[in-house]
């Protein structure tokens, strides 16, 4: 059997995004701006367009001219940087988003897994949520019933199956959610990153399950940052970059292409220059010293920044770490913290190894700037190193410490094991 089950032709997806122009503290200006914004939104509404928050509106293509064909039984991974269009592509294929251009042909029953635990309701019991989540993922009641014991078994929460999930620990909740998802069986399956969370043991079970799915002759499209998993599970890789398909072929070559595009992509960027300096390139490095866009929580932060200076002694390098909401969460200054100014003339490669941080999972970026002795910014590059923490499990259990949980961005680590001395005798 080698018939085509997915065919994408000239696929494109355009989004309209808004920007907030800087905030004004002057009441008059703020009023004028909000009046202007209101007028623009009213015009948008009359023309039937969507309301976009922000003062400036910009279009951008999340996906552009993507063509590929996938045959029955193929297991393909889609790799690319953050924002390369991987999730957008999966969402189009799973009919959540409509393509702006091009077309897709699908042959066969499709299920997609963009998130685990979609639709889980806090008030319902584990048992009820299995049926609810199963139906949402596209399983029939009979299918869920037939697999019910298997799902409960896999999750290991059988003792609490009739307890509302709001009473579950975060770990139990996640395991139950994974388990329903892992038992989804359709002809075509799309999986986004989701199985890469949880503790190591559970992850391994999920990956085993994925490879079982993959070898059962079903068609699987797999999005991941975990290159090891990608290499183990799939033989074909599609590399996306800036919304375009830049490589489609054997997985080893795809990974090489992806890694190369990581290092090359940065160099080609032109960030302009300041009066006396220019930041030329900046990369986050993995343990092997290769550029990467993911950071493993609790490992040293290795950065490589290339700077040029001209006739200016005493310039310092400053880093601002920002979270997904663009709020500053960390700061480093070479002139203040390390008293190491940049040489006054020439091109320099600065290698920094910052202390490990146990960051919450989510998106981050480093802003980089050069500053003169008087703390005047000379050249600033916002969002110079965007990166992501794919999963963060501080206790080594199936608990993903997410930025979006609102508990901050740092998991606080103990310096020595937790000690609890009881002052009163234990109740009998």
């Amino acid at each position, binding site marked *: 059997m080698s018939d085509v089950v997915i065919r994408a032709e000239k696929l494109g997806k355009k*989004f309209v995004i808004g920007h907030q122009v800087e905030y004004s503290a002057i009441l008059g200006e703020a009023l004028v701006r909000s009046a202007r914004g209101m007028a623009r939104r009213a015009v948008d*509404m009359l023309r039937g367009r*969507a*309301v976009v928050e922000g003062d400036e509106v910009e279009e951008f293509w999340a996906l552009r001219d993507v063509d590929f064909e996938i045959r029955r039984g193929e297991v393909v991974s889609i790799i690319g940087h953050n924002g390369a269009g991987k999730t957008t592509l999966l*969402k*189009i*294929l*799973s*009919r*959540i*988003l*409509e*393509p*702006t*251009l*091009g*077309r*897709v*042909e*699908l*042959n*066969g*029953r*499709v299920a*997609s897994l*963009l*998130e685990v635990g*979609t*639709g889980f*309701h806090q*008030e*319902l019991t584990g048992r*009820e949520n299995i*049926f*609810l989540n199963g*139906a*949402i*993922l*596209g399983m*029939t*009641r*009979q*299918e869920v019933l*037939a*697999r019910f014991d298997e799902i409960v078994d896999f999750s290991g929460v059988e003792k609490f199956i009739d307890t509302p999930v709001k009473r579950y620990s975060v770990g139990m909740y996640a395991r139950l959610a994974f388990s329903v998802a892992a038992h989804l*069986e*359709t*002809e075509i399956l799309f999986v986004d990153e989701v199985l890469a969370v949880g503790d190591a043991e559970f992850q391994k079970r999920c990956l085993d399950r994925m490879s079982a799915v993959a070898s*059962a002759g079903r068609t699987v499209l797999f999005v991941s940052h975990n290159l090891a998993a990608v290499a183990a599970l799939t033989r074909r890789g599609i590399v996306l970059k800036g919304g375009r398909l830049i490589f489609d072929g054997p997985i080893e070559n795809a990974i090489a292409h992806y890694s190369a595009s990581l290092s090359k992509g940065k160099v080609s960027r032109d960030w302009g220059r300041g009066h006396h300096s220019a930041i030329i390139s900046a990369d986050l490095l993995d343990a092997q010293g290769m550029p990467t866009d993911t950071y493993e929580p609790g490992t040293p932060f290795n950065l490589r920044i290339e700077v040029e200076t001209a006739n200016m002694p005493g310039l310092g390098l400053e880093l601002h770490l920002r979270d997904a909401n663009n709020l500053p969460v960390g700061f480093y200054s070479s002139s203040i913290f390390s008293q190491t100014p940049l040489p006054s003339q020439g091109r320099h490669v600065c290698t920094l190894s910052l202390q490990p941080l146990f960051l919450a999972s989510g998106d981050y970026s480093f802003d980089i700037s050069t500053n003169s002795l008087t703390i005047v910014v000379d050249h600033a590059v916002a969002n110079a190193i965007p990166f992501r923490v794919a999963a963060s499990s501080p206790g080594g259990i199936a608990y993903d410490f997410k930025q979006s949980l609102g508990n901050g961005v740092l998991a606080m680590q103990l310096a020595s094991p937790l000690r609890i001395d009881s002052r009163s005798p234990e109740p009998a």
Partner: protein
Amino acid sequence: MIVSDRPSQRLILEAGRADRQYWADIWRYRELFFILAWRDVAVRYKQTVIGLAWAFVRPFVTMVVFTIVFGKLARLPTEGDAPYAVLVFAGLLPWTLASSILSDASNSVITNSQLVSKVYFPRIIIPFATVMVALVDFGVSLLILIGVMAWYGVVPDWHILLLPVFVVLAVLVAIGPALWAAAMIVKYRDFRFIIPFVIQVGLYVSPVGFSTKVVPPEWQLLYSVNPIVGVIDGFRWAILGGDSPLYLPGFAVSMLVAAGMLWLGIHTFRRTERGFADLI
């Protein structure tokens, strides 16, 4: 491996392409519809002290207040010999059904935005699932009506057999504007503020606390442009029997308006739902 009862299908995804399989898809996703409806019903009275009794308390208290305000204080006339409380309750039943459908269904798509942005299914099943919740509450209210009628010794005649028809009409009258609003809210959240306002005003401009016969005859036809007027009249006709004759031209106008709004609702929803995930 379990063999699926769902046949393999061939599907084309393209910008602006009307999906011919849409209605077949709704049938295929009927289990999701029932499970969403069941979920909404199951969690509705969770963690409340008196639980389902809320479904009794609210309409009952409203009936008492309306009977006192409109019947005793304002001294508005009833229809025939019907007790004022029964008149009010016969209006309150369809009003509560229609207004809760309008408010729940119109907000349903954004309250389920988690689902909309993560999985595919025909979106129209979300607002329709909320109808089931409203119908459960309606069923409870119906029990109160029986109690109130027994209390006053009102015996319905054969007209009561047509009550289910008017229940369906009440749902259709509400679901049209609700679908339209649900689609619009995704784009323009302004409607979140408009719908409660419409319902609040609607309670007083619709003949809930008083009889339609209070409206001068020359205005009757125009008054029936509000489609809920036709439905309330229908309910009173079915429940009060000969005491409340149905004004047919007005009823026809109400039904025409309702049909128009239903078409507009479905049309708008279908046209915009493919873009929901972009906007939500």
